[in-house]
């Protein structure tokens, strides 16, 4: 960005993400940003959402930022135990929402978490499409976020379509079920209402310019007539995020590699201690 404000970029993004939720849906909290945005939404913007813990699939829990390792924290809250089958049934019946953090997203909202280069002989093998094909063929709202908007992640064409974006193939095979809805990045909020379902600016974060977006994108992002500024977090939003994440797990989600892993090991231990301290108040 940078924002000249008392809140940090992660708090800004989490608030923006939280404000997209609505209605009575299951919300996956699979990443720290996902968990914190769900928690904030539940408290302020979308009280009817039913938040899931990960990986043990409790429903109606208070999500905690846990770098996808929530089992330990979840144990402290019982929640309503679900199964994989329940979760996929909620996806197929469009009662599920998730913030997905892809490795690449392209102008049509296709997304990639599978590989860099050709699938059959990848330059970098990533992880595999997981449940993204299910989401992008069934949900009426598909939310993506990326923490660093740059031409390596926001690309003209993804190397592999793990998630189905817009285009002829979608129109023919799927219709609007699972079409991309929004991308939130550190530069702005984008939708896919440009020509042919291309990425378009919905709003830019305070201080960000259209030029910066174009420079940091691998293609020309469509610019509508009206480009508003993304609303800022309120005092309450920020307090909620900070009190929900005292270990600042959210700061580390964008890290990777061995040092990152080392830091996760450390925070993981602190997380455990914190839970032990708060256990009595959570335990039923």
């Amino acid at each position, binding site marked *: 960005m940078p924002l000249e404000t008392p809140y940090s970029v992660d708090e800004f993004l989490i608030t923006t993400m939280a404000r997209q939720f609505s209605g009575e849906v299951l919300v996956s909290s699979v990443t720290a940003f996902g968990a914190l945005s769900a928690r904030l939404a539940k408290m302020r913007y979308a009280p009817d959402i039913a938040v899931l813990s990960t*990986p043990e699939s409790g429903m109606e829990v208070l999500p905690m930022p846990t770098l996808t*390792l929530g089992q330990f924290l979840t144990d402290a809250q019982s929640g309503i*135990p679900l199964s994989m089958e329940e979760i996929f049934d909620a996806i197929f019946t469009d009662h599920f929402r998730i913030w997905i953090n892809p490795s690449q997203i392209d102008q049509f909202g296709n997304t990639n978490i599978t590989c860099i280069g050709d699938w059959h002989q990848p330059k970098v093998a990533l992880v595999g499409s997981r*449940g993204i094909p299910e989401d992008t*063929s069934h949900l009426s709202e598909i939310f993506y976020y990326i923490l660093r908007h740059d031409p390596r992640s926001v690309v003209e064409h993804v190397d592999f379509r793990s998630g189905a974006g817009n285009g002829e193939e979608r129109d023919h095979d799927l219709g609007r079920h699972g079409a991309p809805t929004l991308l939130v990045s550190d530069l702005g909020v984008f939708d896919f209402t440009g020509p042919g379902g291309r990425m378009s600016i919905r709003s830019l974060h305070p201080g960000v310019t259209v030029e910066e977006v174009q420079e940091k994108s691998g293609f020309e992002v469509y610019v509508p007539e009206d480009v508003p500024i993304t609303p800022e977090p309120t005092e309450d939003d920020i307090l909620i995020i900070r009190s929900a994440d005292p270990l600042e797990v959210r700061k580390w989600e964008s890290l990777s590699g061995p040092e990152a892993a080392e830091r996760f090991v450390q925070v993981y231990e602190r997380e455990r201690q914190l839970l032990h301290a708060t256990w009595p108040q959570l335990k039923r």
Partner: protein
Amino acid sequence: MTLDDVVSEIRNGDTIAIGGSSLSRKPMALVRALARAGRKDLRLVVDVGGPEVDLLLGTGSVAAVRYAFVGFEVMGLAPHFRRARQKGGVDFEEWTEYTIMAGLDATIKRVPFLPTHTGLATDVLNVNRSFKRFNDPFGGEELVAIPAIRPDVALIHVNYADVQGNGVILGDGHVDVLCAKAAKNTYMSCERIISPEELQRYGRDVQVLRVHTAGVVEVPWGAHPTGCAPEYRADLRHMQDYLISCGKVEDWQAYQDRFIYSDHARYLENQGGVEDLVARLKV
């Protein structure tokens, strides 16, 4: 049964479905026993795979993998998986979370396939040689046929079991129940064997029924280094050591000697012993 008894029932070339998800409740003691026994050309089926797939790739035990995901979550990519994918030589096939479930469920329902829209307008459909597009027999939509997955063996790890083979899973069952029902033979390790009377108290947490299991082994810490809620968390420290060991041939050799080519009791000792695990990982 013992871990070795289970392994003796598994042959080179078998198709093996492995339960758990991500860094949660993988049957790691069974997986290590399989590698230790030198089983080869295994054809793995996993939904959200991770340490189990990577380890067996690292020990050269694998001929093929059907997967929706293989990784270490926030800890990073799976090093042997990544290398094998990039280098070739193992028959990988990318599926998705639901389609792995549907493939297993097709076998359970004794049908050759199940239909879905999953995969349409993605490249999964272009690289997966098993899926097939077809037309709904009622003349409407174009769909994807997910073929039945027919494992010879399923390996799962649960919290508790009785000797008859009923199993209690206290958290998400992940794909374990589907694996158990679909495989010709399902072997289950558990943290603790309990009496049938005690087991019945767990009500609907008895997720695995004995008619679907061929054998049970009591293996405390049998999911380590993955977690087994609510007994213990995933051991990120061990996984970090694992990931670092995958960098150099000699380090990987040392890891194997210490943690794979030693039985489960010595495996636990080589961690620093059960007391240390309790202190670090128990809730």
